[in-house]
């Protein structure tokens, strides 16, 4: 089921949670709504679900206007952040709930319900827990039961609110991949909310970056990472060095021989792995030296400082493959030469004038 949101706005008192959101999600996508806390991502998810009404705008599911339909009539499955399993029911009864509350005419027989529920529990690999109560399960198990329960009513859209937020790091890693594979298997349009950019990059086929109730950028993980539209997206996704060339700490970069591929802006965002580092002789005249380094597994992170601007110049982070690091025989305190291979330029010094404000 495709989803179209047009001009959605929502205020809580004076606080504008969502500000004229337009978004199209084609059928079958696995979309991440990504943003810092308080950016409106959960509100947007709840509006798609029908748990919240927008102040303004329309929600179209499969081309039909469903703005005024309540959550029961939207054909969605919702997985809550804290799972919201019915605590007085067994796992089996939890999953069967959606089928048992159907009106008599459309309700399947108890035998079919039993088969469907066991099939779903097998799908999430937890059929052996069917007679347990929710408080006897681990976090990861509850998460999967909540998913099975939402899938029982055969939703056309699956909505997940911070699905991995309350889980241990190891369980989270495992469930991320599992969710992606499950999506490939079921091919149900799926939207999930997260504040973790790594999680969004790893799981989603499309990422929508939100900030202050507005969409900053929408695209595939590759697009978002390689072509960030603005400085917010660039800084929010992955690590990045920010150089304000007009500011004290970074003016030395302008006069230096460090290569920047082009200079069409005032602020440069440079990914650590886009900085090349080469060891120099003891008596070479480079102002930059290696302050410290950390082992991150396949890559090594280098902390570089400019000795001439002690105190004002900030640390530059670079990354290189650990094999290359071993070959280069870099040590702490070594003089190095820098090469910036690629940068994203943003004109931050000019105040950003919104379009609507220019017409007076």
């Amino acid at each position, binding site marked *: 089921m495709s989803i179209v949101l047009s001009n959605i706005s929502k205020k809580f008192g004076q606080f504008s949670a969502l500000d004229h959101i337009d978004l199209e999600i084609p059928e079958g996508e696995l979309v991440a709504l990504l943003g810092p806390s308080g950016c409106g991502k959960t509100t947007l998810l709840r509006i798609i679900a029908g748990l919240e009404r927008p102040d303004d705008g329309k929600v179209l599911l499969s081309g039909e206007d469903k703005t005024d339909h309540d959550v029961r009539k939207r054909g969605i499955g*919702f997985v809550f952040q804290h799972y919201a399993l019915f*605590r007085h029911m067994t796992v089996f009864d939890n999953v069967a709930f959606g089928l048992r509350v159907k009106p008599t005419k459309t309700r399947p027989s108890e035998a079919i319900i039993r088969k469907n529920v066991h099939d779903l529990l097998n799908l999430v690999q937890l059929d052996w827990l069917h007679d347990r109560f929710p408080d006897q399960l681990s976090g990861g198990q509850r998460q999967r039961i909540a998913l099975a329960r939402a899938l029982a009513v055969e939703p056309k859209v699956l909505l997940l609110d911070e699905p991995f937020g309350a889980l241990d790091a190891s369980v989270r890693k495992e469930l991320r991949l599992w969710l992606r594979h499950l999506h490939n298997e079921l091919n149900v349009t799926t939207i999930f909310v997260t504040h973790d950019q790594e999680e969004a990059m790893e799981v989603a086929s499309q990422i929508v970056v939100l900030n202050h109730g507005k969409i900053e950028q929408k695209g595939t993980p590759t697009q978002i990472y390689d072509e960030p539209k603005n400085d917010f997206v660039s800084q929010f996704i992955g690590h990045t060095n920010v150089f304000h060339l007009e500011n004290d700490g970074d003016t030395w970069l302008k006069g230096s021989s460090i290569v920047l591929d082009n200079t069409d802006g005032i602020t440069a965002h440079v990914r650590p792995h886009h900085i090349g580092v080469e060891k120099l002789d003891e008596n070479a005249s480079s102002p930059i030296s290696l302050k410290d380094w950390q082992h991150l597994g396949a890559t090594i992170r280098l902390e570089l400082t400019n000795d001439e601007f002690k105190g004002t110049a900030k640390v530059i982070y670079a990354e290189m493959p650990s094999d290359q690091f071993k070959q280069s025989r870099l040590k702490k305190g070594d003089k190095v030469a820098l090469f910036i291979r690629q940068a994203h330029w943003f004109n931050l010094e000019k105040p950003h004038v919104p379009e609507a404000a220019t017409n007076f």
Partner: protein
Amino acid sequence: MTAITQEINNPKTSVTASALRDPDWLKYGLIAVALSFIFLFLCLPLGLVVFQALSKGFGAFLSALSQADTLAAMKLTLLTALVTVPLNTVFGIAAAWSITRFEFKGKSFLTTLIDLPFSVSPVISGVIFVLLFGMQGAFGEWLSDHDIKIIFAVPGIVLATLFVTFPFVARQLIPLMQEMGCEEEEAALSLGASGWQMFFQITLPNIKWALLYGVLLCNARAMGEFGAVSVVSGHIRGLTNTLPLHVEVSYNDYDVVGAFASASILASLAIVTLILKTLLEWKQGTR
């Protein structure tokens, strides 16, 4: 040697025990004070009620209880509880629901209002109803024109009891429902449940023990209420005397056995309530 092994095997208990150990005289002194207080102010009066009720033998006790006026008082008490408890259960659930599930102006004011019967003296609650529905009251004339009797009649007693016992159910439910949040209910709706299905299959099972507890307290108060009922009842024997009023009337008539026999019924009700309350708390604790 054995002491050391014990300490290693059981480090937590031994540490807390030695750190928190009081001198024996303090421990036993405090226990003695508490026990004698309970004996003096709880057990002794309760025992006295039973003793006085049976002071002229079991036959006198039974015949006091089987008097027409006593039976009428029991019937009226039961009737009052039978009307007020279900009504206040429904009111209490509705009030708790609206306070915990909706945002509206004046919500905190409503929460305060629910507590009003607790903070107002029951006698004043009674007087309010006399001022409203009595002969000289606001609606008195209209009521007597239409031949409706409220004050000095059963409806007045029911109304006063209703007012006094209103907060019990709501007070039990509001904190619980606030703590539970509405995620489970939203989940039920998202799975296609109707409002009633959500209430009976999700909300009610989650609040049932607190609800029962509130109903129990409400019932105990409905049967035992004296002040408010005393003002509106008019003390007409066999007609508008509830059991607590009957105790007072009998005692004023020097019918000691009658008064204490009725009192023993009320006291046993209190004990049954206590036992049920403990059972419910235990049940709530295990869930």
